[in-house]
């Protein structure tokens, strides 16, 4: 009886045709897949509701009960269990604490009655071609995008908003595509250009500007979790800015997305030469020895796997014999006749031992060896042990040359092939994979941390290029998407095949493998100049600290010493003339499944492979990261182009066509315009993955050029504007709020690329959380205290992961610990405090005031000028009145309170100037100034 009543209730909410992927799958995924989905481990009652057919599929009958009977809801036990009033029968079970809404149950019923048709998850089906849909208002569309947008609007009886005026459009274009307001000259030029191509010309000009490349790079830095410190615990300094320069350069050159991706995932494998230089090698032992004294040398080294080829070159100043893993390799009795032999078959996995016996040596002994094992070297250096006359083993000492002959000449080693500038940059690109966090905490276990590092790489690559939450399969099969735990570790294996270890710091906080490079974007002397400036900045800070006995609760000397370490890191780079960047290399290693994700619980061994249930990773792809890149780019891969296109759509409109840009799986949101997404994805892919062309297409659309004014009537039907019934308006992101203020005030330093900079922040923020004095650099200080410095774009601000710049954190900038493709958008009082009181923003107000004053002596005009710079339009009459009223109030105040005026910087005792500064501050704080509309 109860049941019948309930059914009556549901009939009310039946709507138009039900679409499985859009309407049904999200419901099943939310409530059912956890126990009746892809994960075998947690599956209940041998039932899967993510597939229709087969023994486990939804249509199956078990013990006389059919889970879903197409066309007959009342014979479908899935439905009956959903509407059961029995606590023991109802699904989902009460203890999972998710109760279905009645609309959701009604959709399931309708779907079953309409035939319970299953479709594969939309994102795993290849994008389809679609022609432009018919629309009623056929005058409106400017390009294909508009037809798709308008068609959906018309279905809901909505019409697009009016076209925005030229002032709005130019400001919108500049903010969206460069992150900063246009100059007034640019505005005037555009306003005066009455040609029909004026808008397109403007778009082309902006797209070709370096500022646009920087804007694109900024989003990519979030995705790539770029930062200037190592992140875990000690959180010390690292150098990755050469990789950031690579990204900016890639966007300046409009590098096609396929190359952009491939180089970052596998650039080192594109370069078919060893990427590591031979390490420093020396003659070793050097000690006066007696005639006929016996000398032994030994070295133990570890191989994770057997090499493809390995070669030994060695010589000694007298008779010697070399034994490798117990096997005599031979020797020589003349130093000019070195031993040169293939050792591939004598090496073994794990520890290897090399032993050298020398005798009858001259008074000053010397030995030199180079073992080249694939792309890896073991060379004679002070890490070897030496033994004289069977006494105890001691560490060997090094000396440069034997007599006047350098060892390399004696060994007749072939000169290593040099990497070209282009090849070096391809290796630099792989810094993308190394941007993740590192630990330099004492006492950590390398085996544990290396799993953290590679897990993060799997997550980053999956999220960035595939929109997949692969990381959910780290401990068990994915609960919602076809990704097994084995898939996870197969992907992990791509990244495990490198010489990276879970151990701590190498040089300057960078850990192996890393290379020394110069940036393409930042000439060497400019880099050196930057470093020298930074050193003088740090020295000034040291001097400041030295004046006090205690600094921020610590003995001053500790702070001074810590800063010495930071200076040392910079000095090293100045000496070498190069910066360092962490990259990927190739070293075959075994990979095992980690049972329940535990680093030390090894399961089955796996080989590198991508997500095979989405697209088979077969033999046509090489079994390395190059193969992964090819698989990502395969025309059969349903995700890659959609994910990329969606993210650019998100950058421009604030929300993607798929809102959950990080998750295209079954828990993600169904696209607002699937056909449009597909059309754009195919167009992008088939036109050489041309990013600039894609962006141009979007901003040339009528959809983009609408006004943003809120429309209460349309909002009732389309509350989140997902149908694009108007242009969106949203607050600028953290970096752009500041960049825009710098731009408006005329302070912005337009320099592109280079080492990170340190704008003003409240003192002591780093010292308060850091374990300084450990791991070198980045612990204690240190931000420049001096205005006028570091007026660079915020994307260059040094990011310390454990203590982000507070003005950025307040505006939702992520801390770059993990890959982020979608930021939060909040509106908080702390933001207001930053905008009003942060010396950086107050500085922009002072400079804006100065700019206003230089422009004209007439107050009304000064105010109008500042307002126009800030909002992109002249003030209306009412606004002018308010601006003037505020100015007069402030003028009166400063005239009456000279003591306050004296405290306000840069006024030279002029109350009018004081009033202008406060006016300027107000303009920078206008909601309109920080909003893209």
């Amino acid at each position, binding site marked *: 009886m109860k049941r019948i009543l*309930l059914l009556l209730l549901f009939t009310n909410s039946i709507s138009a045709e039900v679409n499985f992927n859009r309407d049904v799958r999200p419901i099943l995924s939310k409530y059912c897949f956890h126990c009746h989905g892809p994960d075998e481990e947690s599956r209940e009652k041998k039932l899967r509701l993510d597939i229709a057919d087969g023994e486990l599929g939804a249509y199956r009958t078990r013990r006389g009960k059919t889970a879903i009977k197409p066309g007959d809801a009342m014979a479908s036990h899935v439905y009956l269990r959903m509407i059961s009033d029995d606590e023991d029968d109802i699904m989902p079970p009460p203890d999972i604490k998710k109760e279905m809404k009645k609309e959701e149950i009604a959709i399931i019923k309708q779907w079953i009655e309409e035939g319970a048709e299953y479709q594969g998850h939309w994102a795993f089906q290849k994008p389809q071609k679609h022609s432009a849909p018919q629309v009623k208002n056929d005058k409106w569309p400017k390009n294909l995008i508009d037809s798709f947008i308008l068609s959906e609007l018309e279905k809901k009886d909505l019409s697009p908003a009016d076209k925005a005026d030229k002032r709005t459009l130019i400001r919108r274009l500049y903010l969206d595509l460069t992150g900063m307001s246009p100059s007034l000259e640019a505005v005037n030029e555009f306003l005066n250009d009455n040609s029909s191509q004026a808008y397109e010309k403007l778009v082309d000009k902006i797209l070709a500007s370096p500022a646009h490349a920087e804007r694109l790079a900024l989003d990519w830095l979030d995705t790539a979790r770029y930062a200037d410190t190592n992140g875990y615990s000690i959180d010390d300094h690292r150098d990755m800015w050469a990789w950031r320069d690579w990204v900016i350069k890639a966007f300046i050159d409009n590098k096609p997305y396929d190359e952009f991706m491939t180089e970052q995932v596998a650039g080192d494998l594109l370069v078919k030469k060893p990427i590591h230089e031979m390490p420093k090698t020396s003659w070793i032992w050097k000690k006066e020895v007696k005639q006929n004294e016996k000398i032994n040398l030994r070295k133990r080294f570890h191989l994770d796997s057997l090499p493809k080829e390995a070669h030994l070159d060695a010589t000694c100043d007298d008779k010697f014999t070399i034994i490798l893993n117990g096997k005599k390799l031979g020797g020589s009795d003349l130093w000019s006749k070195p031993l040169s032999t293939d050792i591939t078959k004598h090496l073994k996995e794990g520890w290897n031992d090399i032993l050298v016996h020398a005798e009858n040596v001259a008074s000053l002994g010397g030995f030199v060896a180079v073992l080249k094992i694939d792309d890896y070297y073991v060379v004679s250096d002070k890490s070897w042990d030496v033994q004289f006359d069977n006494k105890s083993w001691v560490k060997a000492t090094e000396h440069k040359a034997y007599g006047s002959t350098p060892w390399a000449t004696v060994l007749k080693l072939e000169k290593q092939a040099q990497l070209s500038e282009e090849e070096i940059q391809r290796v630099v690109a792989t810094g993308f994979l190394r941007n993740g966090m590192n630990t330099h905490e004492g*006492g950590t276990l390398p085996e544990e941390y290396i799993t*953290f590092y590679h897990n993060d790489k799997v997550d980053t690559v999956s999220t960035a290029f595939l929109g997949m939450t692969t990381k959910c399969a780290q401990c068990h099969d994915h609960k919602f998407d076809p990704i097994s735990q084995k898939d996870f570790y197969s992907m992990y294996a791509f990244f495990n095949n490198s010489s990276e270890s879970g151990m701590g710091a190498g040089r300057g906080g960078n850990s192996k493998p890393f290379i020394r490079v110069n940036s393409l974007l930042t000439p060497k002397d400019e880099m050196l100049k930057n470093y020298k400036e930074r050193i003088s900045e740090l020295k000034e800070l040291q001097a400041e600290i030295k004046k006090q006995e205690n600094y921020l609760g610590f003995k001053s000397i500790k702070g001074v010493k810590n800063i010495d370490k930071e200076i040392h890191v910079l000095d090293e780079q100045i000496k070498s003339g190069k910066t360092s960047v962490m990259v990927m290399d190739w070293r075959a290693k075994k990979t095992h499944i980690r049972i329940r994700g535990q680093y030390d619980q090894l399961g089955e061994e796996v080989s590198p492979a991508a997500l095979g249930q989405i697209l088979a990773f077969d033999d046509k792809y090489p079994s390395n990261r190059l193969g992964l890149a090819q698989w990502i780019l395969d025309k059969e891969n349903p995700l890659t182009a959609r994910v990329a296109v969606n993210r650019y759509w998100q950058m421009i409109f604030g929300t993607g066509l798929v809102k959950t840009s990080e998750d295209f799986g079954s828990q993600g949101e169904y696209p607002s315009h699937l056909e449009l997404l597909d059309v754009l994805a195919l167009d992008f892919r088939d036109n050489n993955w041309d990013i600039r062309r894609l962006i141009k297409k979007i901003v040339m659309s009528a959809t983009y050029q609408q006004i*943003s004014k809120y429309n209460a009537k349309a909002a009732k039907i389309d509350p989140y504007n997902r149908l694009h019934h108007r242009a969106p*308006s949203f607050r600028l992101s953290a970096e752009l709020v500041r960049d825009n203020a710098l731009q408006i005030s005329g302070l912005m330093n337009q320099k592109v690329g280079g080492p990170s900079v340190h704008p003003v922040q409240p003192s002591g923020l780093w010292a308060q959380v850091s374990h300084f004095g450990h791991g070198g650099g980045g612990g204690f200080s240190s931000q420049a205290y001096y205005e006028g410095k570091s007026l660079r774009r915020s994307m260059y601000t040094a990011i310390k992961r454990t203590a982000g710049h507070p003005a950025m954190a307040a505006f939702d900038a992520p801390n770059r610990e993990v890959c982020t493709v979608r930021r939060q958008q909040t509106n908080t009082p702390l933001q207001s405090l930053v905008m*009003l009181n942060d010396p950086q923003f107050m500085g922009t107000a002072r400079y804006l005031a100065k700019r206003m004053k230089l422009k004209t002596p007439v107050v009304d005009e000064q105010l109008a000028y500042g307002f126009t710079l800030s909002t992109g339009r002249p003030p209306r009459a009412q606004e002018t009145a*308010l601006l003037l009223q505020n100015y007069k109030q402030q003028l009166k105040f400063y005239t009456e309170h000279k003591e*306050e005026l004296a405290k306000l910087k840069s006024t030279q005792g002029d109350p009018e100037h004081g009033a202008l500064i406060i006016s300027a501050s*107000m303009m920078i704080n206008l909601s309109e100034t920080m909003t893209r*509309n």
Partner: protein
Amino acid sequence: MKFNRRNFVKTGALALGALGSEKTLLAGSNKNSLPHFAPKAKSIIYLCQSGGPSHIDLFDYHPEMKKLHGTELPDSVRGGQRVTGMTAGQKNFPVCAPIKEFKQHGQSGTWVSEFLPYTSKIVDDITVIKSMHTEAINHDPGITFLNTGSQIPGRPSLGAWLSHGLGSTNKNMPAYNILLSQGNGKKPGQPIFSRLWGSGFLPSVHQGVQLRSAGDPILYLKNPAGVSRPSRRNMLDSLKSLNHMYYQQSQDPEVQTRIEQYEMAYRMQESAPEIADISSEPESTFKLYGEDARKPGTYAYNCLMARRMIERGIRMVQLFHRGWDQHGSLMPHLTAQCKDTDQASAALVTDLKQRGLLDETMVVWGGEFGRSVYSQGKLGNGRDHHGKCFSMWVAGGGFKAGLSYGQTDEYAYNIVEDAVSVNDLNATILHNLGIDHERFTYPFQGLDNKLTGVDHASVIADLLS
């Protein structure tokens, strides 16, 4: 566990027949409206002791351990347990008994070390949990786990969850506030990170706001030099009018919100310094908390701040005190850490009780793990990290008082009974605030995420008053 057929079938027992309930289907109840049930506590003060305080030397007393002093820790106790890289190479693992005497205190007879004379006096108001355990053995994952329920970065902290779920009860201050101090033991102590009070995937408005001891109590709180409060007010009034005009043009609701946020910022400029202004505190306050409480930046001062904030209806205050990482210099450094914290921690509980605030305020004391019974280096020199058991204490707001909970073996190495995981404790804390931790979820990357993670966590009923 409530008995029903579903559970019954799972446990494999005989069918008992349907136990129908009167629950009406789809009553339209909103499962996410908070609190889920009547809360015991309104707010929480979390005294986070960063570095890993030694449970062996402070709370987890085993009289028989004295006899074991200097003997080798048996393999049967260690059970092949992994140790950190710092002692992994050690040949011997000599047991080091507590380096100070213990006594029983209060009516409850709780054992407390002589390191903590003040805490000894409040034992009847607190519950010592001796059976805490964690998965982590290094600081970064350990303290991240304690504060966010996961070792992996990227998840919201307890305070961010509370700000998201319950909001602030003080309209002039953020819901979640952070105070940092550096201990005199190990200096500087292990690093801490903004992620420990971060908002993870929750909106960033919920991140903890760091209150500072020097300069502005909140970053950027103070007007720039030369901008006075009345002239700021004038400017804000004009700004408000201009923003309102923009609102009329754009009809953008965000503008309205922004106008309100500027007003709240203005109010914060008054309320935050008022909290930090201790000039009105009577002498008795400093007698209770100790003279350190006069010095901004000390742990004692931060305890006093915490009480002042709780009085003003703030949801959560969290202190981080660094320096509890005694790998070496065990005696002098532990002495210094206890001197920093003992009196003020106890004073805070006493003070809240006197003011009638303890009933609705939870106080939680503890760090990311405990320390090893075996010596690091030579006997008595120091102790390595230990996650298999450690001690914390809780008080007020729904917790039992005067209890010692949980039992470890005579080496204070393994838990013998009543294990409490970090997420069990978090589930219990949420329970006291009227929140069912399993229903308190936030969707992100395809999952309904919980503070208490994916592994099973339970409210520890024995800890509830």
